């Protein structure tokens, strides 16, 4: 009974407050915003300012493929990272820093717009870069950002193998000098 009540309640709440209803507005609501804080005397003014995206001009996208009617109807188009086909390594911090908030946390998939596999890959690559100490200014505050200030095995230089990202079971390191 309680479950039924909860389901009914959530249905009515979604009907009233859902984003699809809220997005119908007479004014331009959906724009990129930046939050500015100003102090004038003793009053603090916080306002959301509509800003143009700083990235739109520098954006790189793969050229759209030749339209094949049979394929395009059955298959979804690939996401922009799959279409670009870049071989991103964990040392490519200039690319990886674009998927990260200013506090160093990974952006969710509804904002990055990646497919599931690419989102997983980028998240792991960002974690690798942060563990290797390559993105020290973009690392969550609860971590030791500088590897030299970490303890034990974490304080030495570490590099990662990108092939291990989608391995079900990472094999044990082999003895490379075994005879």
């Amino acid at each position: 009974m309680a479950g039924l009540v909860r389901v009914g309640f959530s249905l009515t709440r979604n009907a009233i407050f859902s984003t699809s209803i809220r997005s119908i507005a007479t004014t331009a609501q959906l724009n990129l915003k930046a939050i500015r804080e100003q102090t004038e005397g003793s009053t603090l003014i916080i306002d959301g300012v509509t800003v143009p995206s700083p990235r739109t001009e520098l954006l790189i996208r793969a050229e759209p493929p030749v339209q094949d009617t049979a394929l395009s109807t059955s298959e979804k188009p690939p996401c922009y990272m799959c279409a670009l086909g870049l071989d991103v390594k964990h040392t490519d911090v200039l690319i990886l820093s674009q998927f990260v908030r200013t506090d160093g946390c990974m952006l969710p998939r509804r904002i990055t717009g990646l497919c599931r596999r690419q989102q997983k890959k980028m998240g792991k690559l960002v974690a690798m870069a942060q563990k290797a100490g390559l993105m020290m200014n973009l690392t969550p505050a609860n971590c030791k950002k500088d590897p030299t200030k970490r303890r034990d095995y974490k304080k030495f230089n570490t590099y990662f193998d990108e092939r291990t990202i989608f391995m079900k079971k990472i094999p044990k390191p082999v003895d490379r000098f075994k005879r």
Partner: protein
Amino acid sequence: MSAAKRVQQWATFARTWHIFDCKWQDPYDSANVIKKYLMGLHKPIYHPMNDSGDVVVCINSKEIALRGDEWRKRAYFHHTGYPGGASWTLAWELHNKDPTLIIKKAVYRSMKGNLQRRHTMQRLFIYPGEEVPHDVMQNVTNQIRQLRFVPTRLDHIPEEVTKTYPKVMDFPEDYVLK
């Protein structure tokens, strides 16, 4: 023997001193390269019975990089010879004790265990930092190419480069910048 031939003879049999920067290099991969120069395998006159090996100076051995979780997974075995004298030292513990030992052991293990190995190891100099004694450094004439490229930290890249670098991700329309 003409003068030119004599110089060619000297140049062929002289020991060359190579320098190798271990910064962000995998010691086990670079050991295979260092070994070739130490034993003289890179020379066409190589023969196990002739003394054609070169000298290799390794610098920055403190800043070697190990792959993945190898710092805490790789163990170095030692036995004192007494009962119960076995000990396993993890790679990070060994590197704490002596930052030159991992690269030394890697080169040692990459070579075949014969009578020559100890003498070949005498031609390997390892320094934890960039400071090399002058009498060693003045002999160096060649640099061995690094195997892995040294990564650049994001906070070392200038602000303009970060801003003008081509972008792949753009924010959606209803995103609040953070």
